[in-house]
């Protein structure tokens, strides 16, 4: 196992992009750290606070009314990362449908506390600083893909597989170690990044996580979720981690199919990018299917738009047990695919 981890972490390409990523993101984090401090000063501005609360409540009421009356979710952000806003198509749903009823109920239950513009604004700024956070998450996805793409393919391209497959432990231990090492790799780098963006701020701003509501997180109150900040962070971490593990397994499966590490990267990146396109104007069904992919679930920083109820991830976010089951099943299915593919493939020539 330690050797498989060593192979992934100590590959020159991986080391270079990891160092670059954490250096650059660290610099940007420091920048936003300063900005956040400035925003913290607004908290004491009573006028700003009242304005913020007013607009948040108004937006919450307005959104709820529109959905209740028309079932139209089209005015809200809707999944997909590339071209999501330019391509908005009003999405009409049956007002009596259980899902609309459920969304409206959730909006009704949203509480916008009197101290709405407190530390929340700082956190909002951290996660939504001009899309940087999303970009960094995508950067992290590339690292996962580049890190795991050679895991199986490299053995074949270098010919080491012939040595490995004639050794005592052979395929079984090899495959298990590679899968576990790759999942650990994805976990470690995600954990490192999540720690980098949260812990310094928790220490610096001394945010009371039980007081800050996630509802203020989204631009005004378009989100029907009403989590405490602590709940939000835990859920966001869990969803993000599961997404990266799923992405890791997708990359590994492609690597198992490929005989060349570089060629393994191309379809992995292709699959990653294609699912980012908002293609509702072509096929709503296909678009919903694409929103199931990790690239989209980790990109939902605005945070979890209403139409996400229409995809499995949206529903799962609201149901953590199902989230875990769905992702675990997906990961297991992909792991089983890796095992089958690798076992069936003959050693390289």
């Amino acid at each position, binding site marked *: 196992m330690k050797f498989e981890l060593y192979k992934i972490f100590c590959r020159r390409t991986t080391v270079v992009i990891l160092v670059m990523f954490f250096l650059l993101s660290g610099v940007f984090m420091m920048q936003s750290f300063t900005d956040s401090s400035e925003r913290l000063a607004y908290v004491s501005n009573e006028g700003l606070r009242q304005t913020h609360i007013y607009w948040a409540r108004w937006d919450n009421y307005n959104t709820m009314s529109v959905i209740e009356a028309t079932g139209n979710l089209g005015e809200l952000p809707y999944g997909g990362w590339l071209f999501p806003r330019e391509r908005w198509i009003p999405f009409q749903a049956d007002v009596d449908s259980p899902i609309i009823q459920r969304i409206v109920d959730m909006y009704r239950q949203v509480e916008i506390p009197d101290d709405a513009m407190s530390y929340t604004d700082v956190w909002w700024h951290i996660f939504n600083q001009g899309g940087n956070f999303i970009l960094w998450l995508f950067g992290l996805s590339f690292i996962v893909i580049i890190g795991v793409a050679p895991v199986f393919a490299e053995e074949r391209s270098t010919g080491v597989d012939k040595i490995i497959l004639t050794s005592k432990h052979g395929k079984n*231990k090899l495959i298990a170690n590679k899968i576990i090492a790759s999942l650990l790799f994805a976990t470690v780098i995600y954990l490192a990044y999540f720690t980098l963006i949260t812990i310094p701020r928790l220490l610096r701003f001394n945010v009371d996580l039980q007081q800050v509501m996630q509802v203020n997180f989204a631009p005004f109150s378009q989100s029907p979720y009403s989590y405490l900040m602590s709940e939000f962070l835990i859920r966001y971490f869990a969803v993000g981690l599961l997404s990266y593990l799923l992405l890791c397994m997708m990359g590994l499966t492609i690597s198992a199919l490929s005989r060349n590490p570089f060629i393994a990267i191309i379809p992995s990146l292709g699959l990653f990018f294609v699912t980012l396109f908002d293609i509702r104007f072509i096929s709503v069904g296909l678009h919903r299917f694409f929103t199931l992919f990790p690239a989209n679930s980790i990109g939902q920083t605005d945070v979890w738009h209403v139409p996400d109820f229409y995809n499995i991830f949206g529903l799962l976010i609201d149901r953590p047990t199902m989230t875990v089951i769905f992702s675990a099943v997906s990961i297991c299915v992909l792991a089983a695919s890796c095992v089958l593919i690798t076992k069936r493939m003959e050693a390289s020539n």
Partner: protein
Amino acid sequence: MELKIQNVTKKYKDLVAVNAFDGTLTPGIYGLLGPNGAGKTTLLRVVCALTRPTEGKVLYGNMEIEKLGAEYRKVLGFMPQNFGYYPHFKTERYLEYIASIKGLNPHYAKNKISSLLELVGLTEKRKSKVGHLSGGMRQRLGIAQALLNDPDVLILDEPTAGLDPEERVKFRNLISTISQEKITILSTHIITDVAYIASDILLMKEGHLTFRGSVDALIGMVQGKVWSTTVESCEIGGITKNYIVSNVQNTADQTELRIISGDKPTNDAVQVEPTLEDAYLFYTGEIGTAGGPENEI
């Protein structure tokens, strides 16, 4: 300890890479000779259980190697052609990695690695990255990894390819040293690699085993069939069309040819003592070919 290769045939679609290969191997060094494409590597892949034969089976201790699985791999050491490595691994770490997948006890592996590095002359390079080693050093590292589990069956596929003559001599001596009490199959198309150390020669051509026996027996097969003759340059073309020519040597105004033939090729041809190379060409060469790079010595 016996390795029985029973009527093994391996086909790739219409291509028959190995055709009804049959033989029993006991401890000793076997030189597997044959031109490129003769099926040597495919046979070794079958023996290493890297690929299943289309027909026939390989038995170790009267059990099929497929059924033995890990038990067979436990006693197997394999150095493949184009030996693969991780360039960013240090020599010692690479061996530790192979030792771990061979299921060796870490403490035992550590001692074994030290002794093997010493045996193959890489002790000073234990902290060097594999990618920075010379071709010869890497081949020696390949031998070391194959020996980690102290195998009873040692398969070396073209281990001397790309080495300079001095390295090849060293390598040969090394193989001779380590192969005692093992079934060692040394595949090569470089004849001198096996001439000095092999107890038996297995000669393959177009997937068939065309000869099996000692080096002397192989040479004996062409006794009286090797000729030396001196001809004018303009006659060379005619002779090479009709005979197997194992050597062409130009002198000042004439050319000396070494010809393998059952009949006297020219009136002034004289019989000469055959070499292993002559015997090899007799079995594998085709009329119309002169001894060329393929039969490099």
